C-alpha cells in the first residue's frame, strides 16, 4: 500500500514554497513540527471567523457552537487513541505541559494515595528521553526525595533492557518512557516493560510525541496509564497538547492549575473541584487550537494511520539502504528498519552538523541540527550533535534521493575546501 504523495503534498500549502535560490522546499523537519493541511488551517481560522466564544460559559448560540467544536475535538482525540472515555482526554498547551502537569500533580498527591511518592521510591526514565520527559521527573525526584533511574541506550540507539529487573524493582512508582526516540527513531518495545512495571505496581507514562502522529496507537491495547503528545507534530496547530490518563488515576490526582471553570463551588476560603477532565483545564482553553486539532485527526484518519505507517516503513527501508551506502556518514540509530520510525540522525566525518544543515539549507533542504533536546544521549555517544532528517506522510522516495544528493554535494563542498 502506498500513499499518493503528490496529492497529499497539494493539501499542505507551505510545501509548495520556494526557498533559497528559488529552489522548491524539501521539508525534512517534521520531527520538530509537521506542516499543516489547508483543512486544519481553515478549521482554526473558521473558529475565529464564525464560532469564537468562551466554551462552557455563554448563554448564547455562539457559545454552544464553540463548546460543540471544543468537546467534539476531545471526542475525536479520545476515539483516535482508543480511550475508554472522553473524560480521560485533557487539553494542555503542549506535550511538555502535559508531562509537567502530571509530574506536578503526582508530587502533590495526598500522602497515602496509591500515586504518591516518598523517599526510597524510584522513578524510571531512559537515556533516550527528550528533555521534556526527563527534567520534569528529575525535578519530581528532587521534590519528593525519590531517586531517578534510567535505562541506558545501546550503541545503535535503542533501549538497553538487559538490567530491566534491577532498574524497575519494588521501589519503582513511575516508569516514564518515550514511545519513539526523536533522535534515533527507535520504537520502544513496550510489552515487556509494561509487564515488568505492572508486576511491581508502577504507573506507566508514555511520551507519544513521535508515535501518535506516525502509527496507530491504542491506549487500551497498550495497557498504559498515561500518554502525552502534541498537536503540532500530527499536522495540527501549535499551542495545543494532550494528556490522556486512566480515569481512576486522574481522579486520584490533584489539579495542576487553579482558577476559572475547574470548580464545582467556591467560598472565600475554599473551593471544590470539577470532575475530570475539567479540573485540569483551568481558564479559557485554546479553543481554536482544539478546532484545528479535531480537523487534524479527521485528516489523518481520512488517509489512515495504517497507510501512513506503511508508507513511512517503505521510506525507512529505502532511506536506511541509501544513507548507509554513503562513505563518511555515521548513522546514529538502528541500521535496520524493524521497530524504528523515519527519523534519521547522522554525522559526517570532519563536518560539523550545523555546517551540514547550512549546506543542505542552501539546496532547499530543511533539516534539524544539534542535540535535539536530548543532550544526555549526545554525551553518551560522545558527540555534540547530529544532523537529523525526519519524514512524514507528505515525503516521497524521491525526497530521500534529493537528501542523499544534498549530502553528497555537502561532502564535496567541504572536502574540496580541505575539510
Amino acid at each position, binding site marked *: 500500500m502506498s500513499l499518493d504523495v503528490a496529492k497529499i503534498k497539494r493539501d499542505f500549502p507551505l510545501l509548495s514554497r520556494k526557498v533559497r535560490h528559488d529552489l522548491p522546499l524539501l521539508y525534512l523537519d517534521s520531527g520538530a513540527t509537521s506542516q499543516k493541511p489547508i483543512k486544519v488551517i481553515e478549521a482554526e481560522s473558521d473558529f475565529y471567523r464564525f464560532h469564537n466564544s468562551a466554551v462552557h460559559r455563554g448563554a448564547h448560540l455562539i457559545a454552544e457552537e464553540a463548546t460543540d467544536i471544543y468537546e467534539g475535538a476531545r471526542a475525536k482525540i479520545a476515539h483516535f487513541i482508543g480511550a475508554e472515555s472522553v473524560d480521560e482526554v485533557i487539553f494542555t498547551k503542549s506535550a511538555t505541559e502535559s508531562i509537567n502537569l502530571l509530574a506536578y500533580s503526582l508530587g502533590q498527591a495526598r500522602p497515602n494515595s496509591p500515586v504518591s511518592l516518598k523517599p526510597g521510591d524510584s522513578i524510571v526514565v531512559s537515556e533516550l528521553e527528550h528533555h521534556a520527559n526527563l527534567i520534569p521527573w528529575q525535578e519530581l525526584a528532587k521534590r519528593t526525595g525519590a531517586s531517578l533511574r534510567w535505562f541506558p541506550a545501546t550503541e545503535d540507539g535503542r533501549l538497553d533492557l538487559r538490567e530491566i529487573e534491577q532498574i524497575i524493582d519494588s521501589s519503582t512508582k513511575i516508569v516514564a518512557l518515550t514511545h519513539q526516540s526523536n533522535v534515533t527513531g527507535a520504537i520502544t518495545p513496550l510489552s515487556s516493560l509494561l509487564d515488568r512495571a505492572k508486576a511491581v505496581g508502577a504507573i506507566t507514562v508514555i511520551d507519544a510525541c513521535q508515535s501518535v502522529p506516525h502509527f496507530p496507537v491504542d491506549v487500551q491495547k497498550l495497557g498504559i496509564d498515561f500518554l502525552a503528545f502534541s498537536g503540532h507534530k500530527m499536522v495540527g496547530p501549535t499551542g495545543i497538547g494532550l494528556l490522556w490518563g486512566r480515569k481512576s488515576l486522574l481522579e486520584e490526582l490533584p489539579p495542576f492549575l487553579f482558577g476559572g471553570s475547574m470548580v464545582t463551588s467556591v467560598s472565600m476560603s475554599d473551593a471544590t473541584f470539577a470532575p475530570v477532565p475539567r479540573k485540569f483545564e483551568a481558564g479559557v482553553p485554546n479553543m481554536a487550537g482544539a478546532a484545528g486539532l479535531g480537523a487534524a485527526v479527521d485528516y489523518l484518519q481520512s488517509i489512515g494511520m495504517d497507510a501512513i505507517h506503511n508508507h513511512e516503513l517503505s521510506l525507512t527501508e529505502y532511506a536506511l539502504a541509501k544513507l548507509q551506502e554513503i562513505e563518511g556518514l555515521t548513522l546514529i540509530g538502528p541500521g535496520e528498519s524493524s521497530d524504528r520510525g523515519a527519523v534519521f540522525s547522522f554525522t559526517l566525518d570532519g563536518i560539523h552538523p*550545523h555546517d551540514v544543515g*547550512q549546506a543542505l539549507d542552501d539546496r532547499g533542504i530543511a533539516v534539524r541540527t544539534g542535540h535535539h533536546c536530548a543532550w544526555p544521549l549526545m554525551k553518551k555517544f560522545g558527540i555534540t550533535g547530529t544532523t537529523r532528517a525526519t519524514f512524514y506522510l507528505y515525503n516521497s522516495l524521491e525526497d530521500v534521493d534529493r537528501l542523499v544528493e544534498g549530502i553528497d554535494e555537502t561532502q564535496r563542498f567541504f572536502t574540496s575546501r*580541505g575539510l
Partner: protein
Amino acid sequence: MVNLESLYQELILDHYKNPLNKGLASDSSVSVHHVNPSCGDEVDLNLIVAGQQIVSVTWDGVGCSISQASTSVLSDLVRGKSAPEALRIIEAFSEVMASKGSNGGDPDLLGDAVAFAGVSRYPARIKCALLGWMALKDAMVQAKVIG
C-alpha cells in the same frame, strides 16, 4: 543572493582547519566556559591580562566551523590590545552580526573578522560567530579590565 561560497570563505575554513591559540594556557587571569545551548557548542577561554593590556587569549572548544574559526580570529586580533580597544572591537563585531548583511565591518578595526560579515544574513548562525566573543567579553568583565 548570498551563496554558500560567500558564507564559508577560505579564511574561515583555514582558521577552522588550523586554529590559532587553540589549547588552553596553563595559567590565566580568568577562565570562562560558554555554551550555545541551542546547538551544544562549547568554548573554554583563558584570558591573561597585565594591567589593562590583553597579553593572551587561549581557548579550546567544540563546535561548527563558524564558531571555531571566529574564536581563532578573535584570539589573534585582541592579543596586545588594551582592554578598551578590545571592547571596541567586540562591539564593532557585534554590530556587524546584528546588521542582517548591511554592515561589512571596518577592516582596519576588525582585520580578518570582516570575513564573517556574511554570517549576519543567517540569524541562526549569529550565535555561532559570537560564541567566543561573548566569552572574551565575560572574561574581561571578570578580570575587571572593563566595566
